[in-house]
């Protein structure tokens, strides 16, 4: 009987146990809060795309502005292409994207935006010059935009947003032709 009593007294006291659990729960809450704060809202097909800002590369602008918000494009069909200068498949689709933009640039109904994912300024400049890209292009600072757009696989990826700001389609990988780009846009026109 006496031995049993001695055994129950061994181990961690109730106060210490409460302290340990409080510490662990507090720690988990802190980590959860931090992760939740760091996480961007993510776009889902059929839902409005969360707001983000673009600061264009030198030489590029939209409606005379060097910076803009996605909400500035409400009422237009927006084609957002995520690319990088180190990405070979991006080079494959770059001429087609620029050719497609030439078809829509005067329509005022469709806007193309290039978002350069994790790149060097020199590499980006070389790429934009090489393919003579004229539609507005901006770096994806801190990968914020690709995170909001919920980038699926890698680059290139293209996102089609309708006039109400709702994400309609995601194209993973490069476009094969100008016609493919046109077909995608026409599907929501």
């Amino acid at each position: 009987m006496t031995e049993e009593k001695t055994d129950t007294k061994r181990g961690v006291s109730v106060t210490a146990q409460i302290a340990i659990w409080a510490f662990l729960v507090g720690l988990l809450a802190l980590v959860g809060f931090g992760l939740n704060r760091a996480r961007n809202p993510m776009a889902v097909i059929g839902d409005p795309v969360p707001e983000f800002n673009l600061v264009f590369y030198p030489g590029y602008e939209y409606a005379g502005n060097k910076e803009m918000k996605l909400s500035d494009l409400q009422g237009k069909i927006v084609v957002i292409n995520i690319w990088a200068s180190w990405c070979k498949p991006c080079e494959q689709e770059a001429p087609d994207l620029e050719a497609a933009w030439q078809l829509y640039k005067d329509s005022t109904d469709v806007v193309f935006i290039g978002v350069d994912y994790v790149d060097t300024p020199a590499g980006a400049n070389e790429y934009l010059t090489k393919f003579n890209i004229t539609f507005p292009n901006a770096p994806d600072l801190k990968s914020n935009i690709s995170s909001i757009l919920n980038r699926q696989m890698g680059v290139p990826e293209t996102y089609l947003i309708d006039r109400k700001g709702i994400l309609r389609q995601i194209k993973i990988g490069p476009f094969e032709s100008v016609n493919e780009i046109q077909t995608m846009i026409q599907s929501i026109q």
Partner: protein
Amino acid sequence: MKKVLHTLIFTFLLSVLFTGVALAQSNTPPTDDEVNAVAHKLYCPVCESTPLDVCPTDACKDWRELIRTMLADGKTEAQILQHFQEQYGARVLAEPPKEGFYWLIYLLPPAIILVGAFFLFRSLKEWTKPKAAASVLGGAGSESSPEKDSYLARFEEELKKQK
């Protein structure tokens, strides 16, 4: 007064001399070692978990060239790291910044070690207790509990009755 004036002139000449040396040094292009010293504190933003100084991809070569250009422009290591953080996020830094949520990385491990050490110390103390108790029980019994005393008294009484 003359002495003070001489000291001032001497200090001025020295500062002019060292500024000249510093300017002359800044004109020399940064060496690979200087570039790699900064690149070592960064990770490749694309191919994760690869330090920038040893990353073999073309993109990493471009980033190292960017570091070289920034060093040549007179940017400090801190300014270059700051630039990379602004462009690609804190994930490219080999050493997370000491700010906000990242403090957990620095504070949590020592806190866990301290808590662990406290419980280890407590447990060691507990483990040594039974031996001490056993030696006390085996001894004169001077530290026995009142419960045990009454039991012994009753036991002795019963023995006397038997006699």
